[in-house]
């Protein structure tokens, strides 16, 4: 336990605060899964874009059928694509923030199953969305930048040594 205290004590404070603020908002929306979520804007945008081809119900209701399940698959695939993009470009912190999108995808699965009155599967997805929100917080803290001195320690020591040598 003591080894965990201060484990990420050298992290960039701005990113730490951003992680906590995003966690607070996403956790509150996840804890109220039938209510508003900021990422609903992206789901509605996708529904509008594909609305000419398929008649989607969003939010899901009891009459949801295969078009809505297909729409759910499309919205669930978005965070996977983003995650691959971020990791391939070395954007660790963005990839960690993207886990909140996975939590939102799980929340959408809950919404569809809850609307169709499948209680136990819906509960599992609700718990999964909460777990992913917590994982996202920890991952964001882990992926935050360390102080630049840690990354350039050898160069700084060499520079200070040269400076001291020049003064002498």
């Amino acid at each position, binding site marked *: 336990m003591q080894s*965990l*205290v*201060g*484990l*990420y*004590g*050298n*992290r960039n404070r701005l990113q*730490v605060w951003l*992680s*906590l603020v995003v*966690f*607070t908002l996403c*956790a*509150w929306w996840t*804890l*109220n899964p039938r209510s508003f979520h900021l990422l609903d804007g992206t789901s509605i945008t996708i529904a509008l874009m594909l609305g000419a081809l398929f008649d*989607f*119900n*969003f*939010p899901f*209701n*009891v*009459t949801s059928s295969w078009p809505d399940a297909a729409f759910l698959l499309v919205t669930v695939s978005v965070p996977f694509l983003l995650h691959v993009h971020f990791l391939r470009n070395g954007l660790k912190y963005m990839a960690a923030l993207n886990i909140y999108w996975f939590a939102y995808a799980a929340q959408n699965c809950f919404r569809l199953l809850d*609307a*169709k*009155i*499948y*209680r136990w599967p819906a509960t599992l997805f609700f718990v999964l969305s*909460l777990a992913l929100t*917590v994982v996202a*917080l*920890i991952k964001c*803290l882990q992926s935050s930048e360390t102080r630049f001195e840690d990354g350039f320690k050898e160069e700084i020591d060499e520079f200070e040594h040269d400076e001291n040598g020049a003064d002498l």
Partner: protein
Amino acid sequence: MKAALTAFNTLARRNLLRLTLLTMLILLPAGLWALIGFGPENATFRIIDAVQYQQTGLLSLDIEIITPGPDLAPHIMVPGRRFNLGLAEPKNLELKIGQKLRGSFSGAIKDLQNGQIMMHVDPASLKIIEEPADSCEIVYSDWEPYFDWLPHLKVAFIAFWWLIASLLVYRRNAQD
């Protein structure tokens, strides 16, 4: 005749926008108005889960449609579809989980077209068709005592993880 046509053309030309808007207002929601209220009668369904609440005395039933019955909106009352019903406990019937019943429904769509669907059943119309041997009584909800505490539990969940995060990012000394 020619004068009438001329007058009609003049009227249409001058009020084209108003006529278009009026036509849209009439035609576009026409399909939606048919869905706002619907009342399938004599639909049969099975109670797949239920709880009773002590505070309100209401029953919350999760039902599955078996046969929809004559219905103006057959795409809503589909066999196999599940609904949640809230109703007062019928005085003349003892409802149990697993029973097959017949009843008259009424429903409405809360928000037009893509909204949530609310279903109601007339308790006086309920008749038990079949009661399997393994049907069980409807019990009081175990979670009801905690409903009032839900907002506090949500805040406590967030505060707990703030505490964990604070411990993780705690700076042991000034050099961190």
